[in-house]
């Protein structure tokens, strides 16, 4: 279980998150939604120790998460990656096992098998020798999904995995999320919109610097909550 308590984060001198607290139970798929600038990406970056936190407790299975990073897989937003970087699909997936393999060691046969299985699962094994810059947006996202699978993590965190992907990729991501949930993994997903994709989540977090609501879709997506998060305009559309 992922537990977040009283998490506050400053970003460039302003408060980006204020006393955020929630839990993600094992075997659940939890989606985080909120307007642009609500601190969704800052939340996952704070959880993973990528930005300094002012205060707060971040635990996974009762222990500080920062001591269990090998059990964590993180897929950043696609816009954060330089897609002209000279690297192939295969080598991106192999990065999953970089830390586990250790300094001065070569990747083992087992690691290569994991990478192969992950690429086959997302339907990308045939493209393994292709440079990432020659892939479509959906294929790039599936390559990163394979990297997360090849890490064999317990906690998986995705930042906007559905942004600018094709229907096939969306289906693959949905299927894999269900499989990971069934395998008892803990999943936290940043979702960029309030559309139909919200139906897949067991729980939603509605965020706008503070945690506005947590619960099922019906409990969270109410006109009152949306007004508090987004303001009046959006409430009329969704309520």
């Amino acid at each position: 279980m992922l537990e977040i308590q009283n998490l506050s984060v400053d970003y460039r001198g302003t408060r980006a998150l204020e006393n955020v607290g929630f839990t993600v139970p094992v075997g659940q798929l939890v989606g985080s939604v909120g307007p642009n600038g609500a601190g969704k990406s800052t939340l996952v970056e704070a959880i993973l120790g990528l930005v300094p936190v002012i205060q707060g407790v971040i635990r996974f299975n009762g222990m500080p998460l920062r001591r269990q990073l090998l059990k964590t897989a993180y897929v950043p937003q696609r816009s954060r990656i330089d897609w002209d970087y000279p690297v192939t699909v295969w080598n991106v997936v192999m990065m999953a096992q970089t830390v586990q393999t250790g300094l001065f060691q070569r990747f083992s046969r087992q690691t290569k098998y994991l990478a192969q299985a992950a690429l086959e699962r997302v339907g990308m094994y045939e493209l393994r020798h292709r440079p990432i810059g020659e892939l479509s947006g959906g294929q790039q996202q599936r390559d990163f999904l394979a990297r997360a699978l090849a890490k064999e993590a317990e906690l998986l965190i995705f930042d906007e995995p559905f942004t600018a992907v094709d229907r096939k990729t969306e289906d693959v991501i949905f299927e894999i999320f269900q499989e990971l949930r069934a395998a008892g993994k803990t999943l936290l997903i940043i979702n960029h919109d309030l559309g139909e994709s919200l139906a897949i989540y067991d729980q939603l977090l509605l965020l706008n610097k503070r945690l506005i609501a947590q619960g099922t879709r019906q409990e969270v997506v109410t006109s009152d909550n949306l007004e508090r998060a987004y303001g009046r305009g959006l409430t009329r559309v969704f309520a």
Partner: protein
Amino acid sequence: MLEWIIEPLSLSFMQRALMLGIVLGVLCAIVGSYMIVQQMGMLAHAISHSVMAGLPIAYVVGVALSIGALIAGVVSALVLYLIESRSRVKTDAAMALILTSFVALGVTLVSTLPGANRIDLVHILFGNILGVTMKEVWWSLAIAVIGIILVRLFFKELLFYTFDPKGAQASGLPVHWYNASLIVAMTVTIVVCLPTVGALLVVALLVAPAVTAYLLVKELHQMMWVGSIIGALSSVIGMYLSYYLDAPSGATIVLVAFCFFCLAFFFSPSEGLLVSLWRQHTRSKLTDADMMQTQSIKP
């Protein structure tokens, strides 16, 4: 032709210069490959000029000039990092400020510190590979070998870090150490290259072979291999041109490296300008043919 090649080799200063040129061509391509993928070209430019501030201080203190240059280069990178991370000032403005301020500091100290005016600033700015000693060649070789070994040992970690710094940090890699190591490696390479091409042109030696390779290959390690060959060839051809044209060696090396870049830019099989123009041309011809066919089918 053979005589044309052999004649300069009979001169010991040319032998030393060629050996150094090949070593630096390889070292610069390897370090430069990381610079390209990390988009650190402007940082290299700032550091290459900032090293000048360390020279007069090292001279007066009595340590090797290269140590002073190295410390000044690293300090300039640290000051840049401080300004960027602790203020709203953008990177390009901070770099322009640091570059000029460190050069100004160097020029001021050369004039004011006792004895420091013996430092030849023109030599620092433009270099002179023909004046290098055998000791400098061995030092450069040692640094290049150490650099290659370190890159080999940390290749997978550096690949992960330079491709996806956030992902690497989230996996527990000590990314700040890797970042600092790359900056130090870049500064060391710049300092080693100063006697060859000088502070004004050193960045070209770091950037040109690596970025040429970037247009030709698909993976980072291939970029280093191809870049090394281009870097070494640029040094050798540039040196010969310098010998026969009686031109400054640093400038001819850089111009040859730029010619290699132009060749790749126009003729690269995957990304060359001519290839992409040809592809556009054939695609539009195909589209025209399709339209003609469609029209002829119409009753």
